């Protein structure tokens, strides 16, 4: 049997430097739009999560 986290935000990738980490998911600050996409993609690939766009320069990576 496989055991793992599901329906869980693994990471937050954002351009918004004011966002402060308050809980379990780590925040990654991106320098620009391009970096944001790239970071999100890399984290998603390594964690097999899915990237969701919250708009306003914030992506979350969720494990489904």
């Amino acid at each position, binding site marked *: 049997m496989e055991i793992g986290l599901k329906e869980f935000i693994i990471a937050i990738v954002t351009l918004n430097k004011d966002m402060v980490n308050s809980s379990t998911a780590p925040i990654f600050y991106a320098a620009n739009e391009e970096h944001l996409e790239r970071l999100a993609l890399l984290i998603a690939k390594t964690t097999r*999560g899915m990237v969701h766009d919250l708009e306003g320069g914030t992506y979350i990576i969720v494990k489904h």
Partner: protein
Amino acid sequence: MDKHFITIVISVILGVIARTYMMRIDYRQYPTYPQAYLSHFTLGVIAAGLGAVVIPAITEKEYVAITFLAIAAQHFRDVRSMERESLDNIEPTELVPKGTAYIEDIAKTFEARNYMAIITATATGTAMYIGEVLEIPILLRTLLGIIVGVIIIFLLNKMLQTRFVADIAEIKEAEITFEGPILTIAGVGVMNIGLKESREVFLANGLAVEMIPKDPNAVAVLSNIGQRQAIQHNVAIQLGIRKDMDEPDFTPIARRNPENGNIVMAIVAMEPDMECLIEAVKRTPVLESSKRKPLDSYVGEQIKHS
């Protein structure tokens, strides 16, 4: 024993035919070939054998023999759990999972098909025994047995026939659009796709369909999550899916329009052919466990008349 020999042999043969007739190797590759195929064939022979000896045992006044059937029923229930377990075990290895409802349906089918072998063999045996009582010559008796067996196979097949999605819904092409990051098909938001690259892939190669249920019963069937998973799985294995395990973006997801019960689904297929996609959806079986007939209930009747 000798006088029952022909009856038993003919019954077993027809029982086995009943079982093997239902064991086609098609796109599902299930039962897997050759090993699972052989084990199911053997179980079919055992089932047919059990069914075949029922009538001779009764004519010999060996009534205790009937208890064997109870053991057989127990045994074939085990077949069901064996199938379920094995499918459950391989489920994590599927790119697009079958879903528990589809697995349960397959497992149930396997159990039922063994009973089919028993029933066919018993019916053949009964026909041949009746022939014996009426003192029909052995050749004609054999022929009678075969005819009855074939009729039973035919009837049971008809009874066990699955319905397909095409019978309960109309399938038509739909367009993929994006509302911000939300993948939208025919006005229904399906999922949030964050990566621009993935969105471009969807817009370039994605195909989408809309399933429009024909009546309120069909609405209830298609709303079942297991039924939708079965559709996703079938489409993905038939068209091939452009996805690997680290790309959850491209998992086909069938979503429901809560307003009218229509189902929409998008897929990025290896073979982006709309006709094939529609055909694959149409040919998905309606799962026994997702069948609902709300219109047949008292409340359903009231709603129909109001």
